[in-house]
């Protein structure tokens, strides 16, 4: 089933009077339960691509459908709502709120979805259990290891049952052992039916994905499906 459809997407910035085409006519379709890696050197448009798919940004021109919804014409509030309901973000730097416990960090998307307190705690505890952190729920981020923090972030991404999980260099700040653990979790999420989109410049990480696209100068130059 078709989940995401990007059609003729342009993102053009004006930097010091000079036109920069961060995305230069991109067409991309992502289906349900895909495991996709977006690769490319820095400046290739990788981050813009991720922001576009993650509904953090809207295209200068082009059409973006997310499960049939027209993202390219949405306003700020609608974008916030679609991010809240359909997208789970995992960042390189974890981006947890330092003063909040693991449980509360995972709860926050549910607060914005206006879900009742009891239900929030149930859902957040379950998500933390799913990433193996049931005994760390009341720890603050600075009391957790890097790998554990990223697992909290994954739980936060999962808690709303999103349509896609968007992971931006998820292992970039981790040692290789923790990185392996995190990739293991993402792999198992995929085998449970989730759609995963990885943004990375490391081949080792991209190998976990079943499909790899390569960007260069804002264009898709390679779209490869591995066995």
């Amino acid at each position: 089933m078709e989940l995401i459809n990007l059609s003729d997407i342009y993102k053009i910035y004006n930097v010091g009077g000079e036109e920069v085409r961060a995305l230069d006519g991109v067409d991309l379709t992502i289906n349900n339960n895909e495991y996709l890696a977006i690769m490319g050197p820095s400046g290739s448009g990788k981050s813009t691509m991720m922001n576009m798919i993650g509904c953090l940004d809207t295209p200068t021109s082009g059409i973006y459908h997310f499960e049939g919804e027209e993202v390219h014409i949405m306003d700020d509030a609608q974008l916030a709502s679609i991010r809240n309901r359909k997208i789970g973000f995992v960042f390189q730097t974890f981006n947890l709120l330092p003063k909040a416990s693991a449980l509360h960090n995972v709860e926050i998307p549910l607060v914005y979805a206006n879900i009742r307190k009891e239900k929030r705690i149930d859902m957040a505890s379950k998500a933390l259990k799913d990433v193996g952190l049931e005994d760390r729920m009341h720890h603050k981020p600075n009391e957790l290891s890097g790998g554990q923090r990223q697992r909290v972030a994954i739980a936060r991404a999962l808690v709303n049952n999103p349509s896609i999980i968007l992971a931006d260099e998820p292992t970039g700040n981790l040692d290789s052992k923790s990185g392996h653990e995190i990739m293991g979790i993402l792999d198992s999420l995929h085998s449970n039916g989730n759609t995963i989109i990885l943004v990375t410049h490391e081949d080792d990480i991209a190998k976990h994905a079943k499909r790899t696209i390569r960007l260069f100068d804002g264009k898709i130059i390679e779209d490869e499906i591995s066995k």
Partner: protein
Amino acid sequence: MGSLFFENLKISLSAVFANKTRSILTALGIVIGVLSVTLMGTLISGLDRSFESSMSWLGKDILYVSRFEWFSDMEWWEVRNRPRMRTEYVDKIKEKSKYALAVSPVMQRGASLSYEDKETRTEIFGTNEEYMETISTDIERGRFFTASEDKVGARVTIIGGGIKDAFFGDEDAIGKYIKIDNLKFRVVGVLEKQGKFLGLFSVDKQAILPLGAYKRIFSKRGWMRLSVKVPEDKIDEGLDEISGVMRQIRGLKPSEKSDFAINQTKAFETQYNRLKIAIGGTGFFITLLSLVVGGIGIMNIMFVTVKERTREIGVRKAIGATNGMILSQFLMEAVTICLFAGLLGLSLAYVSSIFINKIFPSTLPLGLSIFSILISMVVGIVSGFIPAYKASKLDPIDSLRYE
């Protein structure tokens, strides 16, 4: 949106308490603002109370006819040649006025009172038998002097409750002799205790004697006023009439200015209201100033907070917070600081009011307390709005990248 409200409250409280010193310093302007407005209110309420009780002692329905106005814009040279009040006016007013219910002449001077080895300096009043109708104090024990006692110049006196306590303690004062400037007077009555007039002088330390005796012993030509009691619902008519009667007594032509004054407690009220406006105005100005300064402080610290938490804002937006949700979060934070500041100011005001109350009776007005808390919240909203709006408009992508 209940869950968002509690989330915001939680964030606000943790932000305020995480930066305790900063919050307190930021809040100082608001604290001072609330403190000044509530203390000013306390002061005015206390003044009101003592003013009212003092005014009730004077009586609204009494006209005080005398040489000079109590409060006047006139120059001294315009009024200094006015003739004195005379005892004969009493009978003339009674004869010609239909509104005058009681007329009593009052002369006053300082004198030394003594009983056995006890001595005190105080004010003595010479008056007639209708005096009691023109004051609100009652006789606690004994009686007032009679018209015939006045006529024959009997040496009797009615003393204030304070003198009675000082001279006689628990003993009965009636029938005892005290000395006024070394002349013996028999105590026939004791007045009820009243407390201080406007907190200035005590009416409990007076002695009242018949005018006949007063004039004979102390002075014939002292300062005198006439207290005229008129019906409570006919004060203005009474004023006009007494004024006319006085002009007639003085034989003034219609073109001539009155050469006497008729004073009313209203004059005190006017004067008092001016004082109140001065105090209130000063308080209002200080409050306004400190609230503006406090508001700027809040705004400043909120800008810093937004800057410090740019990344957090980015994360919150990425996981689904709308602009409105971010706005409400930071607005709430500003309001929370102001609310704490308001409560702090109010508790300081409460503690101070306890001390003020020991000096003169006053209370912290409840309405004003609630008002001051509301005002501090309004300051929070007003000064927090621009920083919160700025936070809400931050671009999520740039914010996530912010170091």
